[in-house]
């Protein structure tokens, strides 16, 4: 019995130990739970809310871009699309198979999707399909709601009603790049279907156009299924951007240019408003806003008319004779009187070299009054040499050349206004007098873009330091510009010269005479040489431009303003390899200006031009098709029969001595 008692005693002792252990654990549990729920409670409540409540972005609608009269240039249309976020996808093959059941995805689509997934970071959405119709979108919403990674989204696609005509000016939109997301860390940038400005005004003004995202508060399950909406904060659409552009005028100018590689700019001389800024040919920004087909992209890149370049702001051309306006003003400033003159016999000798006038036989006696209308080179050689390059360069800069303007453009070329200091810095050489001669007639180093020429014309027409603007400020207040500081008498002489270019019998642009009663156009032609004419060729007679390959023809330029009595509009026209300013560029400027005063008359001029262009396009298409077929047939031929495998001999056409104008931009 004592044995049993001892056992019981030992048991009791150990039972108390065990019970004590249990109590300790129980106390620990209570303590732990109190800690979690009372002391850390707030933190966990937050965590639970974070679990439960998800903020979903509502992408803002992109702001519209409208012209000066409120006509839309870029707007939005709803776009139902299906996007895929690789990060969230569990099984890509199964997911794509699922989509294929609902939508018609062909093999190429699947390849593209897989390629996109492979090259992009995992968090960037990949477009599966766009432009879905409503029934398909509704079906998707129901059927893929539980597939992780697939997101049907109602986005907005950008629409440019006028397409090509505004491509360079407005640019286009596109999906943000991973780099942009890493830089800006804006969650909008990885929102499926969200687009940002990629070029032109769309890119420059992206911030304002983008707007502010709204948020949708939803309650979601662990699998991301939405249970209900808890609240919304509306998105703030991007601001509507009002441009100084006149949509109708720009469309007219673009049509009037036909299939030329050209640029037209129209500026309001009083306000600096850019009414038109068109560069043709262009591309369709509507296509660029989605995905550019590889074939189209290749065609655009290979096209010798440079459809991807905004010639109005980025193209650089020797101003040619249009620069004589600058030389004239500089000469007046330097004290040359209008009655002083030269005898032009077509040649100007300097040392061992001879400079030529565009008129082989010469103009006879030329003074300042006839120098501009006749565009006599000898006159400007003489007085350019007399006043020196620095005086010319100073005047050029005063008139707005050689600089960039404050404009919302994706890029602007500054061009070059050369002087002694520039030459020394650039080439470590002193300025040569021959270079002054070239510069005086707008050749040689000097290089400008069409926008600068338009500004120059506006400044001469108004006498004020006009600055161009593209954005219409709220209220539309007209800016006040300082005077250029050029005596009115000097300007009057130049304006009269420009008037005579168009309206006198000796002028080089008689074809630009205004058809509108009571309105006179004043202008200046320019023909910028692309190749150098050798002495040899001169002896045998200079080849007519029309006989040369397109790439070697001269650029045609024309600057003008109207009406002459109280200048209102300045225009610059450049046709790449357009042969002659007076013959080809001036009529375009005339028609564009006519449109401002009498649209019906200007429109009537379009019909024959467009007929001609259409016929040419047709012919080109036919030739292209023929070439394609030949190429296809050749590819099928046995190699020993193929002629294209034997490289034809190549001839270096360009003269190695030809002065190559420096085209860097500093």
């Amino acid at each position, binding site marked *: 019995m004592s044995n049993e008692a001892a056992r019981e005693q030992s048991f009791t002792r150990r039972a108390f130990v065990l019970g004590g252990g249990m109590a300790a654990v129980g106390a620990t549990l209570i303590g732990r739970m109190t800690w979690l*729920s009372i002391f850390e409670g707030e933190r966990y409540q937050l965590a*639970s809310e974070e679990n439960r409540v998800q903020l979903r972005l509502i992408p803002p609608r992109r702001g519209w871009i409208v012209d000066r009269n409120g006509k839309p240039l870029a707007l939005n249309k709803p776009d139902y699309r299906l996007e895929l976020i690789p990060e969230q996808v569990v099984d890509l093959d199964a997911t794509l198979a699922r989509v294929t059941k609902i939508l018609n995805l062909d093999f190429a689509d699947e390849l593209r999707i897989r390629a996109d997934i492979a090259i992009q970071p995992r968090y960037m959405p990949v477009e599966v399909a766009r432009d879905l119709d409503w029934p398909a979108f509704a079906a998707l919403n129901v059927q893929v709601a539980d597939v992780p990674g697939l997101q049907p989204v109602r986005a907005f696609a950008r629409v440019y009603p006028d397409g090509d005509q505004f491509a360079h000016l407005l640019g286009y939109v596109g999906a943000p790049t991973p780099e942009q997301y890493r830089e800006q860390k804006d969650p909008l940038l990885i929102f499926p279907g969200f687009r940002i400005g990629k070029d032109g005004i769309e890119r420059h003004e992206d911030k304002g156009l983008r707007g502010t995202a709204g948020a949708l508060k939803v309650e979601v399950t662990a699998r991301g299924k939405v249970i209900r909406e808890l609240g919304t904060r509306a998105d703030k659409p991007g601001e509507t951007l009002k441009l100084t552009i006149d949509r109708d005028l720009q469309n007219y100018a673009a049509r009037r240019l036909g299939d030329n590689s050209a640029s037209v700019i129209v500026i309001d001389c009083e306000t600096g408003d850019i009414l038109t800024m068109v560069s043709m040919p262009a591309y369709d920004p509507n296509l660029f806003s989605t995905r550019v087909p590889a074939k189209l992209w290749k065609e655009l890149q290979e096209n010798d008319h440079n459809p991807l370049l905004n010639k109005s702001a980025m193209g650089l051309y020797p101003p040619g004779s249009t620069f004589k306006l600058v030389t004239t003003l500089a000469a007046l400033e330097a004290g040359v009187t209008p009655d002083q003159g030269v005898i032009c016999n077509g040649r100007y000798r300097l040392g061992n070299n001879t400079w030529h006038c565009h008129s082989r036989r010469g103009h006879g006696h030329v003074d300042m009054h006839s120098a501009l209308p006749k565009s006599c080179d000898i006159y400007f050689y003489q007085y350019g040499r007399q006043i020196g390059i620095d005086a010319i360069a100073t005047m050029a800069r005063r008139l707005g050349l050689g600089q960039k303007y404050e404009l919302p453009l994706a890029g602007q070329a500054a061009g070059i206004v050369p002087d002694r200091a520039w030459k020394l810095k650039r080439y470590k050489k002193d300025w040569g007098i021959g270079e002054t001669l070239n510069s005086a007639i707008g050749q040689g180093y000097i290089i400008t873009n069409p926008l600068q020429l338009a500004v120059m014309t506006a400044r001469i027409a108004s006498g004020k330091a006009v600055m161009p603007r593209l954005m219409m400020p709220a209220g539309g207040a007209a800016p006040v510009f300082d005077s250029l500081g050029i005596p009115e008498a000097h300007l009057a002489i130049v304006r009269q010269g420009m008037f005579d270019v168009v309206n006198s019998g000796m002028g080089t642009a008689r074809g630009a005479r205004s058809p509108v009663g009571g309105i006179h156009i004043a202008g200046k032609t320019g023909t910028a040489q692309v190749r150098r004419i050798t002495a040899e060729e001169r002896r045998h007679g200079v080849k007519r431009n029309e006989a040369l390959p397109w790439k070697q023809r001269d650029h045609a330029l024309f600057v003008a303003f109207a009406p002459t009595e109280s200048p209102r509009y300045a225009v610059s026209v450049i046709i790449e390899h357009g042969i002659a300013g007076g013959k080809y560029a001036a009529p375009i400027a005339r028609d564009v200006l006519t449109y401002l005063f009498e649209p019906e008359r200007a429109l009537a001029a379009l019909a024959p031009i467009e007929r001609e262009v259409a016929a040419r396009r047709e012919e080109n298409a036919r030739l292209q098709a023929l070439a394609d077929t030949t190429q296809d047939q050749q590819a099928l031929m046995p190699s020993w029969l193929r002629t294209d495998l034997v490289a034809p001999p190549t001839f270096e056409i360009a003269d190695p001595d030809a002065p190559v104008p420096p085209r860097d931009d500093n």
Partner: protein
Amino acid sequence: MLSALLNGPWRRELSRLPWSIIAVIVALGGFGLVILYSAAGGSLDPWALKQGIRFAILLTAMLGLALIKPDTWLRLAWPIYGVVLAGLLGVELLGQISGGSQRWLDIGIIQLQPSEFMKLAIVLALARYYQFLPRGYETRLNALIPALALIAAPAALVMLQPDLGTALSITFGGVVVMFLAGVRLWLFVSAGVAAIAAMPLAWSMLHDYQRKRVLIFLDPSTDPRGAGYHITQSKIAIGSGGLDGKGFLNGTQSHLDYLPELQTDFIFATMAEEWGLLGGLYIILLFGVVLFWGIRVALQAKGQFQRLLALGLTATLFFYLAINMMMVMGLAPVVGIPLPLISYGGSAMMTVLILLGLIMGVARHNKMPGN
């Protein structure tokens, strides 16, 4: 015969049952049903109704078991242990043949899980073993080896399934009985020291994924989307409940699927989210009452077998509770052990109610006159 049974001393026998503890058990089980009702999104389906019926049947079975004398269990201890061990072996062999791991033994009408019964059988067998071992012999080597073998055999078989939680539970039950039987303390101390010393060795033997599990337990935030997810979400559920919870049917962690296993292993978290600290205290304190009662029954019991049986089973119940709650509160790694009486599941509920029935049998015997 029938009339003798009907006219038997039912009222006297029933009056000897610990009705207050039965009331506590019903209170716990009932609360469990309320939680399951909410876990299903405010519906009797699929859990609450089934569990309720099960609870009612098993509660009756428990009362029936309580009427059986402890001496009967003493006589049947070896056979029961033998049969359950054979069952474990059978499950293992069946698994080998069918080429997969198996825990169930399908005997036609129901599926039995021998490992569940082993939790009870191990206590029964060891209590039987020490009942007839003379005092002072407990620590001798030739007395220790059979006891350790009794524990090791089923524990090893269950580990093979593999079911770490149940194996630990069986080992814990056996070791507690050895401790209570009077095995020298230094043995436990040195065993503990040896276990700690062996830890680096064990660590080096663990698979990478097992190491990862341990590391994740130590710091769940290192893997919030993977294995650490369960612990993190469970802690969020408990913590966000605050003092009095988000209210019945208002849990978000549970209803929006953030909480895994919300009706079984993590039901405490499901409860805590809606009932807060007060609900937790309710469960912990009621179980405390049951455990306290179990200890008191053991202390009052006559004879070593009954003492060891009552307290061994109480300790086993405690092990369930402690591991489950520590797991959901992030104090222990994730081991699949349900919360007794509350978690959804027939097998576990059956084990716990049989366990309580056995303790009640001891309690009833304590009240018998002449003992």
